[in-house]
């Protein structure tokens, strides 16, 4: 069994192309979220949304280790997962605005983006709600022998949900190709996870015999390395694994959560964004290694910004579904 203390030494080798793609993807997520926040502030977005800023390396590092036909399940904080798995930002923005061109024809919204074409089984607004679905996808992949695996993304808050332990047990019993990716951003809504989580997190999956590892979730190369090993493990038929990614959300629990001092200090937020930013960490490393220069990175940023702007404008201009859409697709 792999544990945090016995980490395999070698990271999967990353090509320059992959590294730059991960940089672009992380920056795309950052920009997508900035635009989503902007839509909220301009009162163009119905309801609230949960932003992924600060956590980009988790989704991008893991999804870079996947095949296009592999599955993911996502959460209420799901934009990063969808984009990292290859979703198109224009259709995502359209979904956030409840437009017909959205991934769910406007019926799902920010918390329910799903896309079979990229293996996205759906974001879920029930904490822990996708643990069963993810394990079921791994179950079918094994039965059908199609070589796919599934990554179940969830926040550390979902560690409170019993269903997670039920499915981890079965996944290990039946050696299902599923990776439980726990994004520990340290807060369950407005409560620090230390107040809701007893004991040692990794000991929980370890008790079921799952290989379990903790990784710096701000370092996309580290995330990718750990994820790649678990992907290989799962694909080889050796069963499930648990990856604990330590990270931080920069913004509020949702876009309306502005005054946060009662549950976390401003200095803490500033420390993470100035010292532990996943995009800067990779960018600095790329420059240091002379794999990219700052002009090249700026060019990527400019391109991404233009792309996100166009995607957002597409969504703003897109029409709402007609009212009869409400009764479509209740049954298959």
């Amino acid at each position, binding site marked *: 069994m792999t544990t945090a203390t016995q980490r395999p030494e070698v990271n999967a080798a990353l090509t320059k192309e992959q590294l730059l793609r991960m940089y672009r993807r992380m920056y795309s997520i950052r920009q997508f979220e900035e635009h989503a926040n902007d839509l909220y502030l301009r009162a163009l977005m119905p*309801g609230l949304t949960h932003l992924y800023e600060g956590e980009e390396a988790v989704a991008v590092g893991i999804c870079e280790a996947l095949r296009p036909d592999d599955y993911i399940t996502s959460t209420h904080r799901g934009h990063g997962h969808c984009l990292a798995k290859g979703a198109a930002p224009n259709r995502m923005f359209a979904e956030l605005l409840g437009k017909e061109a959205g991934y769910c024809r406007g019926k799902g919204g920010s918390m329910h983006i799903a896309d079979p074409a990229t293996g996205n089984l759906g974001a879920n607004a*029930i904490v822990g709600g996708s643990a069963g679905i993810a394990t079921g996808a791994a179950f079918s992949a094994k039965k059908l022998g199609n070589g796919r695996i599934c990554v179940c993304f969830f926040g550390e*808050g*979902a560690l409170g949900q019993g269903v997670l332990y039920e499915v981890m047990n079965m996944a290990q019993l039946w050696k299902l190709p599923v990776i439980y990716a726990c994004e520990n951003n340290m807060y369950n809504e407005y409560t620090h996870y230390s107040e*809701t989580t007893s004991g040692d997190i990794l000991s929980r999956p370890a008790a079921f015999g799952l290989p379990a590892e903790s990784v710096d979730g701000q370092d996309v190369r580290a995330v990718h390395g750990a994820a790649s090993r678990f992907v290989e493990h799962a694909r080889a038929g050796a069963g499930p694994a648990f990856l604990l990614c330590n990270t931080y959300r920069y913004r509020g629990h949702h876009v309306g959560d502005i005054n946060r001092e009662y549950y976390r200090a401003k200095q803490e937020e500033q420390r993470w964004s100035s010292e532990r930013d996943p995009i800067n960490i990779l960018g600095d490393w790329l420059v240091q290694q002379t794999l990219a220069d700052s002009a090249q990175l700026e060019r990527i940023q400019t391109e991404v910004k233009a792309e996100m702007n166009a995607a957002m404008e597409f969504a703003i201009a897109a029409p*709402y579904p007609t009212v009869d859409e409400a009764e479509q697709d*209740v049954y298959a």
Partner: protein
Amino acid sequence: MPETAAQTTVRELTFGEAIREALAEEMRRDARVCVIGEDVAEAGTPFKVLSGLVEEFGKERVIDTPISEPGFTGIGVGAAMTGLRPVVDIMFGDFLTLVMDQMVNQAAKIHYMSGGTWKVPMVFRATMGATRRSAAQHSQSLHAWPSHIPGLKVVLPSTPYDAKGLLKTAIRDDNPVVFFEDKMMYRLKGPVPSEEYAIPFGVADIKRAGTDITLVATSSMVQVASGAAKLLEEIGISAEIVDPRTMWPLDEKTLIESAKKTSRAIVIDEGYHRYGVTAEIASVIAEGAFYNLDGPVKRIGAMHVPIPFSPPLEDATVPSEKQVFEAARQLCGKS
């Protein structure tokens, strides 16, 4: 408003404030009352309904939990059986699905199964109501579910006054009570006396007197019915609005009497139309007032679809003033 309210010092409180005040008063009165749920303490729930309670009563009585609904609800059941009076907070009524075993197989049945020896004096506070743009898993009105279960009492207040008086009764009741708050009403203001009062279960309230048609409405649908009643008045139809306030116990007498008087009835509720509470209430009226009715009892509920996110779609799924107005106009034979 009931007379008692008019005679005493009356303040304007929001629906949320009325709930907080009921909880605070009951917690002062009875040291066994405690609140348990996710982000109920410093955060005061995402809706800020419980703000200030932890400051007064401390973390021993306003208890933050992990995101473990079945677990903390089960703890509530056990604690209720053994000397406390827990008020369990189910942040979104949609999460009742997660606690069904604790609520339905445990809390609801324990008194009966134990031959009346154990009691489960607890309250489940849950939200309901759509149009908040929260999509299919955070917008449902699931009060028909517990209403179907013997052993549970189910409360749906529609005004700040009712919310406070009914919550106090819920906390003092020796049975599990499921208390539904429409999250879109938390900021709704209304008169609430500062003097002590409680509202008994099983007593419907006539929110508006009328002679031509009875509109039975629950929770936020009372506002929808009120809007419709104003429109109906303009075309010469006098609508009576009856709010049952509790789904169980149900004040069948008041419902039947009103329908007998007006000879027509429409039942409006935000839960699903199919197999919803409107069906039960309509059948009570149909049976009890049959010989006095001039037409079939009509029902208006949510469209039978998961609540869609997109605003124009979501709005179309819940009963509207216009829909109630049209149905009432037709039933009264007015063009």
